[in-house]
């Protein structure tokens, strides 16, 4: 590992410690929700990282289709995988918060449903990467990634209409109702820390993908050599 990477990882770990302290100790306890509100400092930043990852996946996929550059494909694979992990965390932390605050684990509200559909699309994408064989994986995956990305705004629009027709059980809440400055503080520190964590994960996964590609190419070369003999 390069010294720069080691330095960045150490920095991120320190940042993570600090932001955790900010979120769990420094930030004031929310008046109506109580301690459970603190999950927000993890929920929102992970959602942000998941969004970033899926956006990176889209850009990398377009770049791959235009340039046929295998680096772009490795980035697409890495960011989709990390995105799914973070999206899973969002989908788990959400209900943990919703149960005591809303009284329900889940509601088919626009944002929740869109996140779930997003998760489904990218899990499908990862399964495709598994099932596709040889070098065509990269093209097929890039194509599906573009479909997924185009689909998300349509999903959001349709669910919003679907749910505004019926009264939704979600009462107030959310970060839109204004945050205390101390809460903002904790939130932004966590946002920064988790973005760094996301960058580290994607970079590590990217390198791993490159190694996997190399191993596969080497296997193909050896098989070819053996068949020539």
């Amino acid at each position: 590992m390069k010294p720069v990477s080691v330095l960045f990882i150490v920095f991120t770990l320190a940042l993570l410690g600090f932001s955790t302290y900010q979120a769990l100790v420094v930030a004031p306890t929310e008046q109506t929700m109580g301690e459970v509100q603190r999950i927000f400092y993890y929920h929102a930043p992970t959602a942000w990282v998941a969004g970033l990852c899926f956006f990176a996946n889209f850009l990398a996929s377009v770049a791959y289709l235009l340039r046929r550059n295998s680096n772009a494909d490795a980035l697409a694979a890495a960011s989709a995988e990390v995105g799914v992990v973070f999206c899973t965390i969002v989908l788990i932390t959400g209900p943990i918060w919703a149960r005591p605050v809303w009284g329900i684990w889940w509601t088919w509200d626009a944002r929740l449903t869109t996140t779930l559909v997003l998760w489904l699309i990218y899990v499908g994408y990862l399964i495709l990467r598994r099932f596709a064989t040889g070098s065509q994986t990269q093209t097929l995956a890039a194509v599906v990634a573009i479909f997924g990305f185009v689909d998300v705004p349509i999903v959001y629009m349709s669910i919003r209409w679907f749910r505004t027709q019926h009264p939704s059980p979600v009462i107030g809440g959310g970060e839109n109702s204004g945050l205390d400055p101390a809460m903002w503080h904790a939130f932004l520190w966590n946002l920064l820390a988790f973005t760094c964590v996301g960058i580290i994960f994607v970079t590590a996964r990217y390198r791993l993908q490159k190694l996997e590609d190399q191993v596969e190419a080497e296997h193909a070369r050896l098989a070819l050599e053996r068949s020539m003999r």
Partner: protein
Amino acid sequence: MSAFGVTRTTLVKDLRMEWRSKDAINSMLFFSLLVVVIFSFAFNPTAEESRVIAGGLIWVAVLFAAVVALNQTWAHELRNQVLDAYRVSPAPPNALFLAKALGNFLFVVILEALMAPLFVVFYQLRSVGPLWQLVVVTLLGTWALVVNGTFFAALSIRTRSREIMLPLILFPISIPAVLAMVDATTTILSGEGTPEFWMKMLLVYDVVFTMVCLLLFESVLNAE
């Protein structure tokens, strides 16, 4: 041959093959019949309830049945390396794609026409809203399923487990279309509210994804 000529020739060829074998229609018809029967056991609805859930039932049955036919779309072309021959020919890839999508569209519309009386009989259905809206929703919704389905079928025949891959990609992408179809159909059947938003939504979905499919089909056909 012009692009239109390629589309027409392929479409006529597919229709003739289907007319002689009736493979796709028969398997879809029997499959959706099974879905309808199983649903009616699973939910055991009264006439009142069935009006509310019918929109969902019809489209889930069609969605599952369509996957059966969609999976077969490109299977003919793999035999004798037809698809490879197509790739080296100067014929435009999108002409082939459109022919396949139109063929599937026709098959699924025929399926729906045959299934409609069954639904009326089994679920005592009767449309409160205007019937022409139901026809428009059906045509728009079917195209939404079929255009992406044809595309993803072309994609999934290139993977290890062909038959499984198609629904795994098609269903998540189709969620907004299914939502729009189901809600529009329920609205029309019950006569409560207007389905206009959902019809516009389906139109947008159709236009957007038809364009995306046409833009990307060449990459899929030529994927190495």
